């Protein structure tokens, strides 16, 4: 019998090939499983919108246009420069050209895309389907932002090789390129979150159209501004990159950016959160953090100015100007924030009442973070007062350490009067607005936008009525300040600090405005007290039951070695 020879070598090779293929397949399966697990962790909106974007014509078209633009720019640039490309620093010129191409999608397309993405959900009725899912409002806004970021990265990836190319052309350093790109990306994300807030602002179609037009115009403005700033930075930037102050200012800008981004993000989230949830406390905490950062930077600026003046041997450091500017910024800030907080509903939902602090101390300090117009009113005034007190502490303490005078253009009296009357105005106007809103609420709902308009109207009334009276009844040509303009907060406050000395009217104003403010505060006192009296309520039985079912009690553990026996 003839045995058929076995193809030993080839079968081994075959088996080895199978083993390798199996191993390869296993590795691939592992990678696939890992990717699937990672995909599960991603925001569902990001996954869905990325899938949509890949298939959409609009995205492909924009991407191809950007790519074509950078290619044409590259060829045209090289052609124009000719042989000089080998010996002259042509990097800045090319960078600026590429920056035009990059800035347009990042400053206009991406933020507007984010705005439209959420607005379209409302128009196409998909937003309701999304809102009744278990996605939280934060996840919805994060998802939209993440989609905008992915889009941004795609545009960046199209232009990035060309930007790197400008470094090779000389005249552009890596730090400048990185800094410009970082700010452009941050700016684009900042504009995107603003776009998302605007998309939540109104459900009405005409409102959306108006907002849409205004937003596009604003984005074009930002685009032009960004290109101009980039040009300035490319031309002059290298000179300031080595300055310590430049990086400190950058840090301050980033702090302002981060805290503002947080507030806008939380505001957008609050807009789409269901009505019984606490939409105010996270925003108030964010405001407080922003204010704390602001005070920190204000203090740093004062110290820095005093140190610099001491180092240079100056006897005077213009600290009072920093404090005054900071107070004006804070006054405007808390007046605007106060306007929005005083428009909140006075009804505290049962859901919010479940989370109220229990302890006396908790109630004392945390009540002002609770939603409500009364607590919002006190929160705004208390914060403004705290900032001003901080300013005074800085004004008095810092110079005493460095034996230097901090009063240059204005006196201590002027600053003192300015602040007392300033707090008075904020308390007075916010209080009147709050009281009027509470009266209107008996007949109609008052949205936040209407409350802001009402406050603006009140301030305008306070400024224009005395002016009209003066024009009508006073001799022609008389344009001087008098107590008739006591309700005009801008003119009154300007009068106090603009002149070299304290004006005569200031003595009356310092009694009149705080007295009126106290009067208005007491007018609102009952409503504030009503909000403060809210107490924590217990969880409903059904929730307790579900929580207990989700966390079953742990099995009893043996307390001694004998517990296990038997």
């Amino acid at each position: 019998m003839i045995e058929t020879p076995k193809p030993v070598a080839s079968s081994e090779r075959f088996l080895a090939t199978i083993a390798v293929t199996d191993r390869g397949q296993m590795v691939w399966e592992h990678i696939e499983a890992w990717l699937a697990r990672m995909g599960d962790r991603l925001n569902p909106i990001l996954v869905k919108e990325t899938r949509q974007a890949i298939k959409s014509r609009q995205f492909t078209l924009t991407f191809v246009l950007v790519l074509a633009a950078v290619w044409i720019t590259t060829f045209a640039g090289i052609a124009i420069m000719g042989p000089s490309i080998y010996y002259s620093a042509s990097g800045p010129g090319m960078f600026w050209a590429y920056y035009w191409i990059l800035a347009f999608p990042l400053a206009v397309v991406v933020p507007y895309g984010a705005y439209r993405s959420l607005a379209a959900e409302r128009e196409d009725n998909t937003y309701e389907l999304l809102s009744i899912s278990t996605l939280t409002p934060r996840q919805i806004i994060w998802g939209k932002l993440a989609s905008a970021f992915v889009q941004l990265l795609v545009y960046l990836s199209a232009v990035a090789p060309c930007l790197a190319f400008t470094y090779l052309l000389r005249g552009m350093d890596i730090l400048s390129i990185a800094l410009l790109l970082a700010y452009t990306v941050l700016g684009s994300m900042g504009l995107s979150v603003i776009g998302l807030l605007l998309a939540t602002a109104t459900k009405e179609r005409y409102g959306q159209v108006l907002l849409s037009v205004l937003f596009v115009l604003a984005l074009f403005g930002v685009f032009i501004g960004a290109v101009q700033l980039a040009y300035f930075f490319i031309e002059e930037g290298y000179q300031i990159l080595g300055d310590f102050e430049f990086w400190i200012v950058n840090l301050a800008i980033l702090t302002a950016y981060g805290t503002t981004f947080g507030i806008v993000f939380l505001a957008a989230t609050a807009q789409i959160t269901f009505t019984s949830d606490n939409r105010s406390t996270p925003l108030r905490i964010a405001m407080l953090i922003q204010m704390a950062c602001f005070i920190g930077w204000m203090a740093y600026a004062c110290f820095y100015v005093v140190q610099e003046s001491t180092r240079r041997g100056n006897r005077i450091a213009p600290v009072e100007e920093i404090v005054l500017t900071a107070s004006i910024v804070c006054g405007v800030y808390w007046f605007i924030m106060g306007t929005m907080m005083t428009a909140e509903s006075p009804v505290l939902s049962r859901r919010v009442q479940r989370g109220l602090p229990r302890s006396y101390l908790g109630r004392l300090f945390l009540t002002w973070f609770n939603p409500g117009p009364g607590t919002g009113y006190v929160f705004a005034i208390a914060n403004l007062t705290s900032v001003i007190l901080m300013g005074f502490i800085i004004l008095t303490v810092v110079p005493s350490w460095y034996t230097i005078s901090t009063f240059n253009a204005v006196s201590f009296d002027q600053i003192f009067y300015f602040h007392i009357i300033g707090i008075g105005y904020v308390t007075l106007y916010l209080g009147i607005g709050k009281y009027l809103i509470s009266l209107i609420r008996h007949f109609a709902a008052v949205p936040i936008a209407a409350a802001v308009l009402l406050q603006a109207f009140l301030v305008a009334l306070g400024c224009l009525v005395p002016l009209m009276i003066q024009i009508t009844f006073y001799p022609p040509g008389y344009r001087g300040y008098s107590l008739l303009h006591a309700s005009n907060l801008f003119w009154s406050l300007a009068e106090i600090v603009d002149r070299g000395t304290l004006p005569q009217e200031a003595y009356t104003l310092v009694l009149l405005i705080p007295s009126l403010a106290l009067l208005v505060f007491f007018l609102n006192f009952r409503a504030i007290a009503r909000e403060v009296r809210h107490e924590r309520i217990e969880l409903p039985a059904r929730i307790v039951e579900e929580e207990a079912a989700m966390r079953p009690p742990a099995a009893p553990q043996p307390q001694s070695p004998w517990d296990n026996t038997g």
Partner: protein
Amino acid sequence: MRTRPSHPLIELRRLHRYFGDTKAVRDVSFEVDAGQVFGFIGPNGAGKTTSMRILATLDDPTAGDAFIDGFSVIDDPDRVRRRLGFMPDYFGTYPNVNVKEYLDFFARAYGLRGRERIAAVEHAMDFTLLNTLAEKPINGLSKGMKQRLCLGRTMVHDPGVLILDEPAAGLDPRARIEVRGMIARLADAGKAVLISSHILTELAEICHVVGIIEQGQLLAVGSVDEISQQSQLLRLVRVRLLGGAGSLGNWLETRSDVHEIHLDGELATFSHHGDRESEVVLLRDMVQAGFPVVEFGTKAKSLEDVFLHVTNGRVQ
């Protein structure tokens, strides 16, 4: 396997919803238990959709409250949403998305992960007979397919409560039968289903309980028979007599519980006011009076009749 809860899965307690001077919903209360299909019927603008939107946590009531599985829609909408599937009377679809991706997105949005999500999407496609259309872009689907897709989306996270607003609107008869079958199977699986429809015959076939709402007020709640009895509806009686029904006409006219008598040869049809027992009495009286009855039949009024009777015919 789910254990049946001790409380109703859907409960409306003295619900009111006003839009300015318009009172869309006025003092509406009812309950739906697990495994029950509740048909919500009423003319256009009666307050059905408003009530359903409140239950779906898309709107807040002016007064009163509603509960899903014992959780308030006002205070705990987050907990309600986990247990609820809402199918509105619009589609809500995305461009550049196919059937599978659409269901996958909502499965993710309801927090399903990994194999659980894949299985949920497969189940939803199986249930709604969309397996063969998995890769088809949703913009290219027919109305019936879209309706099935929306039902798939509504049930992808396996909610205990389903609220379906006009699920069969605009569908052809075949698609209606399919949707009706799906709803019946969902109820068999122990889900509480609240459904509104204008096609009353369909509701009558699948609903255990119906609620008739008009001008924001719930006029009647119960099974069709219960409402018929509550509202003392007339039942249609048909009698065939050997040799002609002429003489029966005179006899019937003497009775106060009989109206609308029609005679046609051997056949007499008339409306009878009373319950089933009184029908037995009527037949016995007829036979005792010597009428040669060869056929006696009664027919309950349809849901349309009940609806028209309860709403006094004021259908818009």
